[in-house]
């Protein structure tokens, strides 16, 4: 199969941020359009605050589940240092969408390693198209840090090869059986992400 017909989205973040759920929602949206879809994780001990990446590939026929370095169309990074860690997975024309809210692990906070001064700036200096905004702050304003993944999905909704409403529906479907309040909160989060990305 011709790799040019495949869309590669790499979602990267930290255990507990909802990386895998975001990838799941992206996959479901692509599947509903009839694409072949594969999703794979590198999440060894993700529940313990480690690095998590989820690879989503869709197109006519998807072979290998993993996205090769240099072949991701879109990098959705839930944390700026994670964006820097995975940026070389982007193809030259690839785009990075980054939550600029920093989260440092204990090895940084206790002084064993240092946090990069300006990860988003480095990505930009490396010649990649990068959009960054503070999804963490938006989530907290809305009242729940767990909304970060919905905000990030809203942020990339304009870049996907399908209608924005399709992705939004896929997100909201998850909350249809829960409370009306949660549904509304996620609707707001999705819209806020979409708006913030366009302003970035």
């Amino acid at each position, binding site marked *: 199969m011709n790799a040019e017909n495949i869309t590669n989205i790499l979602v990267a973040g930290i255990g*507990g941020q909802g990386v895998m759920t975001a990838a*799941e929602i992206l996959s479901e949206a692509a*599947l509903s359009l009839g694409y072949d879809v*594969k999703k794979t994780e590198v999440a060894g001990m993700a529940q313990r605050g480690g690095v998590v990446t989820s690879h989503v590939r869709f197109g006519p026929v998807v072979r290998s589940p993993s996205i090769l370095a240099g072949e991701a169309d879109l990098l959705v990074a839930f944390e700026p240092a994670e964006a820097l860690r995975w940026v*070389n997975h982007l193809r030259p024309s690839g785009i990075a969408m980054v939550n600029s809210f920093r989260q440092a692990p204990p090895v940084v906070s206790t002084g064993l390693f240092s*946090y*990069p001064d300006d990860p988003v700036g480095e990505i930009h200096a*490396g010649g990649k198209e990068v959009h960054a905004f503070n999804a963490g702050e938006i989530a907290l304003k809305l009242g729940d840090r767990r909304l970060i993944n919905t905000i990030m999905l809203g942020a990339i909704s304009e870049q996907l090869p399908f209608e924005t409403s399709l992705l939004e529906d896929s997100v909201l479907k998850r909350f249809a059986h829960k409370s009306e309040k949660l549904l509304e909160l996620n609707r707001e989060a999705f819209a806020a992400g979409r708006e913030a990305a366009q302003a970035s």
Partner: protein
Amino acid sequence: MRIKKLNARQPASSDMRIFVSGNEAIAMAARDSCVKVAAAYPGTPSTEILEYIADYSDIYSEWSINEKVSLEVAIGASLAGSRALCAMKHVGLNVASDALMTQTLIGVSGGLVIVVADDVGLSSSQNEQDSRYWGRFAHVPVLEPSDTQEAYDFTRAAFDLSEEYQVPVIVRATTRICHVKGTLLTSPKVEWTPKAGFEKDPARLVMVPGNAKHRIPLMLERDQQLAKASEISSLNRYEEGSNTALGFVVSGVAYQHVKEAYPDSPVLKLGLSHPAPIEKIRIFRQKVDRLVLVEEVEPLLEKELKAEGIQLEGKDILPRQGELTPEVLKRSVEGLVEREEKPAPRIIAADKVFPRPPTMCVACPHLGVYYTLSKIRNTYISGDIGCYTLGAGHPWNALDTCISMGASMGVALGLDKGRQPEDENKKVIAVIGDSTFLHMGMQGLLDLTYNKGNATILLLDNRAVGMTGGQDAPSSGINLQGEKTSRVDFPGLVKALGVKEERIHKVDPYELPTLFKTLRDETKVNDVSVVITDQPCVLTERYKAMQPLKVEDKDCTGCGNCLDVGCPAILVSRRETVVKPNGKEKELAFATIDTAACTGCNLCVNTCAPDAIIPAENLIENGYAMPEIINAAAPADTVEETE
């Protein structure tokens, strides 16, 4: 700004496909193959297979206490006339192998399938071993699916194969099968009539030497039949390709990687990889200029094919460990063929980003244990398999060995008995979790008491198999279906294993002074002591969060004691260097608490001399601002959930 749209092809019309992981596909295959009994011990990456099967009320399913028992349960069910499945991670089959090596002589009644998941690339394992060896060793066929669809199809095929040839069948999956989600079309449930009950047949079922020796020729004859079947099996498929300069023989997920990297090359795809279709491969060899054999992990088939005189490239060019991804394949095979030059992607220095090693959870009951262990001097600490293996890392560095399930007990005894004069005063401590203790630790403890060892055992009973996601075990008193069942009585159990009553202590691991005193006292006694901690895993519903804490900045002296707890919610807000009266410089680290992540376990409060850690007010309503740099470990209920 506006962002450009990605370019993708318009999709086809919708259909009946579902989107599931390889593990879920295997569970569905069990359902649709009329499996009646399924058993497993949790282990990454195979854990979810049984969790999915537990949803099917037609199947009896269980968490067994270890993989050997799970296979024995499946063997019994097969002999009783039912189809049976057991699932395990690669190292689990080592444990189960004693049963397997003789079961193969007996054969099956109802179909018997062993799903074994190899952790190629060691995403969450202590080694990387190739379970295909067991197929050779035990004279049983090995099927290797390459994606979700085949995980389903091959598991179903495995039951037919098992019954046709009277043989247990291994379905060898890998992490990239189990944890990859892909599309699946299921087939109708099979019309399967159970065998007519258990048949007494001692010559076949009672493996004493006189009976077993007569079964060996039958097993060897079965090998021959399976080898013939492999030659004509539709599971072994030839795929044409326009570029015959290079051809591939490949099994498992590596097939997808080959198709990705070399879409134009001919491929012989092995679904039934053992016994391999030697003649089919010989014919394939004639069609291509050079043949590359791609197998994860060991050069197993390579040796067999080379012994048959088939010329090929294998592990002489491919790596002996890790996944054979398209990148790895291209790098390795590059020397063999001309390749069009691609512009190299622009490299940004991403390798300088700090590591993000896994941490223990916020408020984990193990934190207090490792804090205490890190404060006790002159110890050798043998560890075991579970979350608590993380105690080997920063900031505790309080674990000296980790080998296999239950090994901490025997290793402790060996450290004690084998000690050299310079280690005369060392205290030997073993750390083991509840589920690991029940899996394979009990025997080691019995050995310790029976042989008059001197070691202090920390039995961390958090009532869950924490590392694999908080599954139940006999220590939780809940079964796979979520029903109440008997709960093991640890003090009673270790007493029965020979530990003296006065040497058994139950301690709340959040009460640091008690824990410290108990450990210090017990390590001084020349005997086997068991200290049982009794607080639940924070990933389970049994854990109840309390009011979160914060640091009163004006009271913090920067001593950094609380950081030694290793709780991911405790962070450094600023550093200072001060000069003490004696002229020496001292580094101060002032702490802050990520209050939104804190669940108020109070461990850090115990370590704070100036009482600077106090209860926090209600966060959101009081305009709580998250620290700009916070740690990532989320409270347990947020893990992989958006709601």
